[in-house]
């Protein structure tokens, strides 16, 4: 029962979200009290569903690219051939995390102009850091006995990486991706200030026209997405960690 209830809650939240995205007008009575008499209570300058999908697509594309690059780099610096890069990468990650996402976004605009691109770049760059850090931690803190055993059984470097090291580091890497996705989901909304198609449009429209209902629905959709995705990742990590004997 203790496990059942939160899952039921999640399922219900997901159901409400899906209904809201497909038939937002059903929720109009709930949001109506938040707006002045004749203002619309449901976002009407575009489809909430398509904004949500493009929001998710932007985050997904940026996170995928960030994952590939960050895990690739982490693999490189944890091999003997890349060991010289390890100390600097660590301090770069540390410095990089002090870059506010908004600043990264703003700085990307001069380089690539308006639209989706600066958002993608900002999300990509900012997403790199947690994934890289976690992948590096995961790959460099494997139990020495297991790494030794993998060499001892005659695995080649590539086999050790793909059959032992990456599978064992996977839960930690996933935790990094989860962090990165959660930050990106929220940061993507700011992308709408530079004309990216995200749920930020809804929020900004609300701020501009003093429409609290818009702000609320934009913010809540993003928050619910973030919570659900966060939970899904956590569940996946738990399963993997249990299988990897770390649970």
């Amino acid at each position, binding site marked *: 029962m203790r496990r059942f209830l939160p899952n039921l809650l999640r399922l219900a939240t997901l159901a409400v979200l899906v209904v809201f995205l497909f038939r937002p007008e059903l929720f109009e009575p709930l949001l109506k009290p938040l707006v002045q008499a004749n203002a619309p209570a449901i976002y009407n300058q575009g489809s909430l569903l398509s904004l949500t999908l493009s929001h998710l697509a932007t985050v997904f594309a940026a996170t995928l690219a960030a994952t590939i690059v960050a895990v690739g780099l982490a693999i490189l610096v944890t091999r003997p051939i890349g060991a010289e890069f390890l100390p600097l990468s660590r301090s770069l990650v540390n410095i990089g995390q002090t870059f506010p996402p908004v600043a990264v976004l703003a700085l990307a605009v001069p380089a690539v102009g308006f639209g989706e691109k600066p958002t993608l770049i900002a999300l990509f760059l900012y997403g790199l850091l947690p994934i890289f850090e976690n992948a590096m931690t995961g790959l460099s803190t494997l*139990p020495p*006995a*297991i790494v*030794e*055993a*993998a*060499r*001892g*059984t*005659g*695995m*080649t470097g590539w*086999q050790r990486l793909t059959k*032992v090291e990456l*599978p*064992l580091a996977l839960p930690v890497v996933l935790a990094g991706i989860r962090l990165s996705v959660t930050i990106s989901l929220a940061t993507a909304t700011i992308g709408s200030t530079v004309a990216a198609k995200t749920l930020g449009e809804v929020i900004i429209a609300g701020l501009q026209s003093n429409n609290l209902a818009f702000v609320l629905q934009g913010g809540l959709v993003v928050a619910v997405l973030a919570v659900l995705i966060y939970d899904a990742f956590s569940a996946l990590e738990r399963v993997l960690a249990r*299988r*990897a*004997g*770390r649970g």
Partner: protein
Amino acid sequence: MIEIEAITKRYGDTTVVDDVSMTIAPHTITVIVGTSGSGKTTLMRMINRLVEPSEGTIRIDGADNHAIPGHELRRRIGYAIQGHGLFPHRTVAQNIATVPTLLGWERRRIDAKVEELLSLFQLDAAAFGPRYPHELSGGQQQRVGVARALAAEPNILLMDEPFGALDPVIRAKAQDDLLAIQRHFGTTIVLVTHDMEEAFHLADKIAVMDKGKIVQYAAPEEMLVNPATDFVETLIGAGERPFRLLSVGTTGEAAEAGTADGEPLAADASQRDALSALLWSGRDALPVVGADGEPIGRVTLAGLARRAARPQ
């Protein structure tokens, strides 16, 4: 046969293994002992090239171990380590199948091998095969570790303090299992330990290492009688000598003609165990029975005392 010739390993200015030469006969158990930092593990790891030597060569059955790539060499040599090193994300069966899979064996042959090894180590294949390592006890994990090392039927098995993490009761059982396995497969075993008790119990020959050099390489009895240096003598422990001497012989060898009352002793138990049983039971003699349960004679306190005395 493993021939180690003038092998040296240096890390920077420190020489960890210093010009060591030794020949390890096939189908024997060789135990390398020494204090920590004596270079014993490094020496062993140069056999399967987990460590590359600075100088010297190692030949396995006449062939230089640098003739093939390191990972292929390691697939032919079993390797078991302290804390077992099992892959936590793979089941027991998958762990044991590691090297056969790397070698590209057929599925059916692998399955048969896994089953054979599990039952050899007294683990029920159906029950234990699908489990993950963290679901096993320490002793079971250790057995699976050795089973994995033996899966590809290697002629040589290297073991680095394989029983170091086990509690004394399970350790004694694991050592006896190892002896049985060695007799079963005829594997050449090289085992590194700092436990002299273990060395005398298992070894056909013992190599004592100190500061990167082999100070004595001899059969256990020989080492007891003629320790090459003070260091070897200290390592053996002067007070332990008679008991160590008894621990390398079996009760069967010490059996005299005649009969005795009391709980019979197995012929393959060590003489040390026999002495212990005699002292504890308060008797002067106990009967000895063979593997078939048939009496083959008796051991006496006086007989064991003669055997425990310094050989002339």
